[in-house]
């Protein structure tokens, strides 16, 4: 197998160029998918026989919760790459993905609470799934805080990578909490391996929204990483030339 692409990632300049080519595609597909998914989900999907229209919050809640967990897994992978291969771009990825993941966790928790009030009768319950999700939020806060607290770039990268790797044990706990324990949160409606427990006109918008959220995540992450790469490489000639070109274009 050819691993050159992987080792090329070690070059910030190469990353900057290749991500510039992907960015427009990702941004356009994110906007298209989210708009189409939201209109289909909010306007055209039929209401649920028990919950009526309040079930529609699923179209935000589930993609956000998926993304919150996937983001954490990617933090851990970036952490391993940073520790083992000493790739600087991995630390940039960890630092820039953590706030997005934290926001997704907040969205999942808030929409869940809004849905929980009419459906369960409570905003918050100390249920295994909900508590594990709250721990995920604090893990994100921990990584963000650690990244800002240590001023030496290299030690901060190491500390954040280790925290990201250790915290990844929380992900299977979130995923399987509904199967391992008695919880108020229902088991997964939507899994990769099985037929969803809802009709097509209900799950199709959910699938579109989920892919849209992933594209949105990728686009925002690349934008943030590109900015951070420029900032860190500000002493190199290519970065200075790129900044000059950007300023020239916008002025």
């Amino acid at each position, binding site marked *: 197998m050819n691993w050159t692409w992987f080792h090329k990632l070690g070059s910030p300049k190469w990353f900057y160029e290749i991500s510039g080519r992907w960015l427009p595609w990702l941004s356009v597909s994110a906007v298209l998918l989210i708009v189409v998914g939201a209109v289909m989900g909010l306007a055209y999907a039929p209401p649920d026989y028990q919950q009526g229209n309040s079930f529609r919050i699923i179209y935000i809640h589930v993609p956000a919760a998926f993304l919150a967990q996937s983001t954490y897994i990617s933090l851990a992978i970036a952490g391993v790459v940073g520790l083992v291969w000493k790739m600087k771009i991995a630390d940039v990825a960890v630092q820039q993905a953590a706030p997005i993941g934290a926001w997704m966790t907040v969205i999942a928790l808030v929409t869940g609470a809004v849905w929980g009030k009419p459906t369960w*009768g409570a905003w918050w319950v100390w249920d295994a799934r909900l508590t594990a999700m709250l721990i995920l939020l604090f893990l994100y806060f921990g990584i963000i805080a650690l990244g800002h607290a240590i001023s030496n770039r290299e030690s901060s990268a190491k500390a954040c990578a280790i925290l990201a790797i250790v915290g990844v044990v929380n992900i299977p706990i979130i995923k399987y909490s509904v199967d391992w324990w*008695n919880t108020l949160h*229902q088991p997964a409606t939507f899994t990769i391996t099985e037929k969803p427990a809802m009709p097509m006109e209900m799950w199709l918008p959910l699938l579109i929204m989920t892919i849209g959220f992933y594209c949105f995540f990728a686009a925002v992450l690349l934008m943030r990483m590109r900015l951070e790469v420029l900032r860190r490489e500000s002493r190199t000639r290519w970065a200075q030339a790129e900044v000059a070109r950007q300023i020239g274009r916008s002025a």
Partner: protein
Amino acid sequence: MNPIRKKRLIIIVAILLGVIATVALGLTALQQNINLFYTPTQIANGEAPQGARIRAGGLVKEGSLTRSEDSLTVDFVVTDGDADTGIQYRGILPDLFREGQGIVALGRLNDKGVLIADEVLAKHDENYMPPEVSSALEKTGMLKNYQDGQKETNK
């Protein structure tokens, strides 16, 4: 992969395995505390502590719901198929509450084994369907089969 990288990777994997083992042992030890509620079978077997505030969860038994005529007090029975627990609650029930629905009630067991609840939460399942489909299924009496079938496929 060069030896230094290999060594670092092994150290990381070892740390991760250690953390997983620790968390797994901790969660197994806390098993009972993490469960949100006791099932009626557990209560019948005396696994639930007497006098302490506990949660009981199960399906509301068909035909067990009685409302008091002069107050908001309701009595009903939750079941898990094997055992039943009586529940008494005073207050407004959540929208999803009905017979056959999964619920979780928080309260204390009295000496007759009835749970005096001060909070009742409705538990939603993972199945969603449009109202036309559910009423059509209900008309033909297939709703129960459908739900059982869904439960089977989800296992």
